[in-house]
C-alpha cells in the first residue's frame, strides 16, 4: 500500500502517525507547502506575544518523520490530482502515486474587500511566515487596528497588546466573539480586554485603508479615522478546497465526506479544516475548524484508509480562550435561534458566568466564563446526548465535578465510551 497525505499539520500528522502505528511496512508520505515542519499554528499568537520562541512551536518531536519512517516533502505544493491514474503532481512537476490519499489541506484566512488592503502593513495570522513578517515590522509600529472580533481577531489583539502596542479591535457585530458566545459572556470578555488597554469598537466596519506605501489610517463606516501603522485581519477562515474541486470531488463549504471521512472518490479521504463533517450538537453538516477536531478526524481517516471501517460520530464545536487571566470555554449551541424550543439554565455571580442550553433534557451547548472546571465533564454529556434531567439542579453548583455524573455514567453505560467512564463505575 502507498499512503499519501497532502498537508502536514494537525490532521495530516495525526493521520500519518495512526497509519504507521497500525501498518509498519507500507510507504507513507506527507507533502507540505510550508517552510517550517511540524509547527502548531495555534501557537503563533503566543509567538507574537513573545511568550514562546520558535523552538517551542513544534507539536511533535523534530525527528517525528524519521522516527516513523515517513517520507516528508517540505516546501512542495501539490497542484493537481489524477484520480484515474491515482497520482498527484507537485508544482515542480514531480509525480507521486498513491493507493489511498488524504486531503488535509486546511483553511486560509478570509480577506476583506476594502480599498487599500494591498498596502504594506496589512497582515493575516495563519502561517509562520505571517508571524515572522509581523515581528520584523513590530518595533516600528505603535498603533495596530485589528479587523474582526472573532476568536482569531481577539487572540491577535491580545498577543500584540502583550507587546505593549496600542490596539483597537473593529467588530462588525454588536458584540465580540459572536460565533462563539452569547451577549452576556461577550460583555464580560470585552470588559476584561478593555480594562487591559485594548479598545473594542463594536458595530463598525472598515471602509478604506489609507496610506501611501504603508498603512497610516483606517477609515470606518461612521466616518471616524483611526491612526495605525499595522492592520491585522482576523475574520475567520475558509476551507482550502481548490485541489479537491479541480479533480471533481464533491465540494460545498468544505470537502464533503461521509461518516468514514471518505470523499466522493473511494480512494480519497479528507480531514481537518478543509472537511465538512457532521456537527453533533447542531445535527447538521458543517466545518468545525478546530485543532482537536482536525486531530481526531486525521486519526479516524487513517483507520478507514486502513479499511477498518470505523465511523466518525462527528465533531463538537468547542473553544477555549484566556485573556488577561479570564478563562472562557464555549461548546455547541450557545445562542439558539428559536429560544422557545430550548431550556436555558444560567447564572452570573461574582463575574462568573455559566450557561447551559438544553433541548429535551439533553445539553446541546454551554458557555463558561471565569470558572471553566466543569467543561470537560459537560463535553461528554453533550457528545453522548445524555438525558440530564436527574442532575439539572447541580449544573450551576460551584463544586460540579465528575462524581455528579457518576449515576448517569452507571445508568447509561452503553452510551458513554469506555474512555469516559473507565473503571470508576466498577464499584459504583
Amino acid at each position: 500500500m502507498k499512503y499519501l497525505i497532502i498537508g502536514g499539520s494537525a490532521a495530516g500528522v495525526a493521520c500519518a502517525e495512526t497509519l504507521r502505528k497500525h501498518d509498519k511496512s507500507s510507504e507513507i508520505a506527507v507533502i507540505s507547502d510550508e517552510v517550517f515542519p511540524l509547527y502548531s499554528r495555534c501557537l503563533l499568537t503566543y509567538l507574537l506575544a513573545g511568550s514562546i520562541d520558535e523552538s517551542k512551536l513544534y507539536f511533535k518531536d523534530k525527528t517525528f518523520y524519521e522516527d516513523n519512517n515517513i517520507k516528508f516533502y517540505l516546501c512542495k505544493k501539490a497542484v493537481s490530482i489524477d484520480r484515474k491514474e491515482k497520482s498527484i503532481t507537485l508544482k515542480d512537476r514531480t509525480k507521486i502515486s498513491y493507493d489511498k490519499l488524504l486531503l488535509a489541506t486546511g483553511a486560509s484566512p478570509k480577506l476583506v474587500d476594502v480599498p487599500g488592503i494591498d498596502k504594506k502593513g496589512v497582515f493575516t495570522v495563519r502561517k509562520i511566515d505571517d508571524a515572522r513578517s509581523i515581528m520584523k515590522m513590530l518595533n516600528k509600529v505603535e498603533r495596530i487596528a485589528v479587523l474582526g472580533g472573532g476568536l482569531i481577531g481577539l487572540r491577535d489583539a491580545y498577543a500584540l497588546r502583550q507587546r505593549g502596542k496600542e490596539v483597537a479591535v473593529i467588530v462588525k457585530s454588536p458584540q465580540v466573539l459572536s460565533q462563539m458566545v452569547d451577549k452576556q459572556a461577550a460583555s464580560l470578555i470585552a470588559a476584561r480586554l478593555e480594562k487591559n488597554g485594548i479598545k473594542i469598537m463594536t458595530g463598525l466596519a472598515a471602509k478604506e485603508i489609507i496610506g501611501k506605501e504603508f498603512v497610516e489610517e483606517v477609515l470606518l463606516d461612521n466616518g471616524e479615522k483611526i491612526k495605525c501603522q499595522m492592520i491585522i485581519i482576523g475574520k475567520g477562515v475558509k476551507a482550502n478546497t481548490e485541489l479537491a474541486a479541480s479533480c471533481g470531488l464533491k465540494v460545498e463549504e468544505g470537502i464533503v465526506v461521509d461518516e468514514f471521512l471518505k470523499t466522493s472518490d473511494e480512494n480519497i479521504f479528507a480531514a481537518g479544516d478543509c472537511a465538512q463533517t457532521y456537527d453533533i450538537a447542531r445535527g447538521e453538516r458543517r466545518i468545525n475548524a478546530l485543532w482537536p477536531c482536525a486531530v481526531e478526524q486525521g486519526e479516524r481517516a487513517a483507520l478507514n484508509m486502513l479499511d477498518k471501517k470505523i465511523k466518525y460520530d462527528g465533531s463538537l464545536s468547542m473553544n477555549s480562550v484566556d485573556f488577561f487571566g479570564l478563562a472562557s470555554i464555549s461548546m455547541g449551541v450557545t445562542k439558539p435561534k428559536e429560544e422557545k424550543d430550548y431550556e436555558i439554565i444560567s447564572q452570573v455571580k461574582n463575574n462568573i458566568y455559566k450557561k447551559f442550553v438544553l433541548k429535551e433534557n439533553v445539553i446541546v451547548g454551554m458557555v463558561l466564563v471565569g470558572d471553566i472546571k466543569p467543561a470537560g465533564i459537560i463535553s461528554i454529556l453533550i457528545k453522548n446526548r445524555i438525558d440530564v434531567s436527574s442532575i439539572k439542579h447541580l449544573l450551576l453548583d460551584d463544586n460540579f465535578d465528575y462524581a455528579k455524573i457518576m449515576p448517569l455514567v452507571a445508568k447509561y453505560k452503553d452510551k458513554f465510551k469506555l474512555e469516559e467512564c473507565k473503571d470508576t463505575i466498577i464499584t459504583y
Partner: protein
Amino acid sequence: MTKDLLKKKKTKDIKIYCDITKCVGCRSCEIACAVEHSKSKDIFSAIKEKALPKKRVKAENINNKIISLHCQHCEDAPCIKACMSGALSKDEKTGATLQDKDKCVGCWMCVMSCPFGAIVQDVENHIAVKCDLCPDREDFACVAACPTGALFVGTKEEFEKKVKKK
C-alpha cells in the same frame, strides 16, 4: 512493598483505583498529592510556599458516595488530541499520560476535553497540572496516604477481584 510497587509502576495497565464503598472523603490523598508536588515535599514548609502547591486528585461526592478521582491515564486520551502545543503525550511503555511543563502554554484545551475534569489550572504559573504518577518516589503519594485502603494500585482484574471478595 515499595520494591514491588516500583516494579508495578513500570508495567503497563497498572492504574490507581478508588473503591467507592471504602472512600470516606477524608482528603488525605489531596493533601499528600499537594505536598508531593510542592518544592519542599514537606507539609509544614509546603503550606508556606508562595504559590501554594496544587493537588491533582480530588475527593468528590454524590448521594453519599465518595470517590477519590485523578487522571485515569486514558488509552485513547482526549486531552492529548486537544493539546495543540504537544505538551501532553503518551508514554508507550507504561501507558501514562505525561505532560512536558515547558511546552504548556495554558490554553486550557485539555481542561475542555478531559471527561473526568482531572486537569487542574495552575493559574499562578499559567500552566495545566495533572497526575504525573509521582516520578520522584517509588510508590504513589495518594495511595500511601489513604487510611482506609480505598485507593488501590494494580490491574483492572486485580481490582475487580479485590472488590468482589468483600
